[in-house]
């Protein structure tokens, strides 16, 4: 059964855990995308600033996230997916990269197990503009293969995601922006693992930015799509905004009907998960509840199209 979910970013960790999950539940959501990337922000990683959150012992981290589990169970919400901290690799930051790859990501997988998360989005390395696509592929495959034992132990899967890069002020395609490339990644890794431990997280906003046709993308990826990041933008910036908030005439903006039809065609049966955290900032604070309800209404409407 298709469910509707939303990311915790924008609500957690700023709000009290119980209050945040209550808000999510009251808005009607069944599922959440747990953003543990909020504990080690991408902006800090790009500038080389590390905090000690993931340096805590596994026991301490598990204890911290048990409060999430308690709140989710109390409010009848389950975690459909999780987003690990990113970027996992930054050029020239070898010590940080070793820390991310050797400690933060494995601990994230264990946290996923504790929270009952089936799929964790772990961004692949972005290397193609400096080293070429083939080396980018090889290094990513080598790293993800190293995670197979812990994935099997924790019974958690990894989703790769379609990414973009910025060259100057221009957004250009990044790793897995090409659907055929994404298929190659996933099939190579699953062949190695001997089971379906790797899947794909389709980000609709990222597709818009690199002018990819979402329906074609979905048809090529097919059953490999295990998670979604649903949001919309103006085609220029990664705005993570509300669907239907761009365009002035019918047919402008993202073609959501086409996306939902494509998901139906490939038999998608997961969670329509929204990655729209900026709406928690862009609308006045007092409107957070009705913004969440609107997002849920959109998701519910879309379930009727699948």
């Amino acid at each position, binding site marked *: 059964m298709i469910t509707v979910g939303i990311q915790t970013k924008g609500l957690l960790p700023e709000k009290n855990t119980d209050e945040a999950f209550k808000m999510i539940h009251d808005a009607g959501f069944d599922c959440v995308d747990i953003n543990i990337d909020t504990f080690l922000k991408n902006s800090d990683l790009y500038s080389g600033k590390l905090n000690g959150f993931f340096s805590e012992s596994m026991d301490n981290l598990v204890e911290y996230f048990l409060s999430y589990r308690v709140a989710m169970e109390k409010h009848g919400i389950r975690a459909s997916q999780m987003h690990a901290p990113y970027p996992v690799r930054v050029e020239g930051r070898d010590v940080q990269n070793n820390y991310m790859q050797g400690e933060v990501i494995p601990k994230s997988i264990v946290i996923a197990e504790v929270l009952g998360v089936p799929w964790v989005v772990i961004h692949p390395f972005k290397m193609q503009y400096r080293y070429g696509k083939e080396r980018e592929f090889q290094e990513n495959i080598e790293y993800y293969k190293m995670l197979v034992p812990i994935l099997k132990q924790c019974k958690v899967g990894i989703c790769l995601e379609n990414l973009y890069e910025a060259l100057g002020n221009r957004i250009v395609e990044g790793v897995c922006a090409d659907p055929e490339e994404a298929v190659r990644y996933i099939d190579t890794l699953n062949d190695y693992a001997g089971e379906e431990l790797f899947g794909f997280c389709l980000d609709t906003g990222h597709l818009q930015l690199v002018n990819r046709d979402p329906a074609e993308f979905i048809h090529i990826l097919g059953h490999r799509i295990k998670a979604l990041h649903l949001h919309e933008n103006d085609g220029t910036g990664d705005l993570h905004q509300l669907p239907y*908030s761009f365009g002035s005439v019918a047919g402008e903006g993202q073609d959501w009907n086409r996306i939902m039809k494509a998901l139906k065609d490939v038999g998608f049966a997961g969670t329509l998960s929204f990655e729209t955290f900026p709406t928690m900032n862009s609308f006045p604070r007092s409107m957070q509840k009705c913004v969440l309800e609107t997002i849920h209404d959109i998701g519910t409407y879309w379930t009727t199209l699948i």
Partner: protein
Amino acid sequence: MFKAGIQYAAGIDFDAVRNSILSKNTEIYVSEAGKILESLGDKDKGIINIKGLVWKVAQERELYSDSVRNAVNAGAEYIVAETKGLDTVDKLVAAVDNNIELIKECGLCLLVENSNLYNGNKYIYGPFSEGKKLCDIVEGLRKRVHYDNIGICADIGVANLLGSNLKSFTKDCMRYLALIHMNDNDGVIDSAQMPFTFTVGRGTRATDIFRVIGILIQYDYNGYVVFNNRGTWEVTPKQLHHSMVRLLEGMTAEWQKEYRFKEAIADRDKILVLFGGGNMFRDYMISFGDKYPPEFIVDNDKNSWGQERLGITIKSPEEILAIPEDKRNVWICNMNYDIIGKQLESMGIEYNCFIDQYYI
């Protein structure tokens, strides 16, 4: 308090509007008035109240008198002269000359709306773009047609297309401002979308709507604020129109709450206390400190207790408890609303939040 309403655009799900508080002040195009008024049934009486008309001056040299009279009979009080497509003031004057008798007969308030010119590439300033020039036009029309019931409709989305300082634009219109048309866009295309949906980065608003509302509050504006979001209704499936209307109602509630902020801080029967002595406190003092200074401020920084900031003494949060409960008027002046709110709740203290984004 302003009067919130909604513009009926072709394609909007009428049931979504019918069930909304915004339908108390519904605005329709003159060209569609006949069809819409016919479609209103008994069940709509008292629920969908036609309050305004929009006249596309460039296309409609002469107003359809039957449509206008029927709309007035249904409750219409104002008519917006949409100046889009007019490149000179003379053309507006000629159109007003041609139709003023009907407008006077119906007792309608004529509202001149701002518009821009388009040079084939982008929007540029035209004769109806600037607030001060709109005031001059209104003054000129009033004298010319001997009718004082003429004012301004300020379309925020249209002004945004020029990269105008929206707060200044609204302030410039204030003398004759009677209607705000509230919509948003990316500053390039007139998409007439919902407010607050255009952002940069991770949710940083790109349109200065907060300050527009702030200037309305500071000037005690009590005219109409009508959502004219035709882009939203065009792009969103009809099944979701009620959800989008609910968002507009949420905005209305937020702005009405902010209007009450000014009433609340002016309440001389209560003791005004601000929590936080930092930048947000400074912002409060700049906007309201002269008329509504707090009795004292409180802060969790023990080192600041006993000191003064901008002439106001800083005390411990515990000092709030010395004020009788029914005399407390506590406002958080710090962006950590959730954390400080929890602290005050644990102390049994009711509070409100000062949102400086409206006033800085």
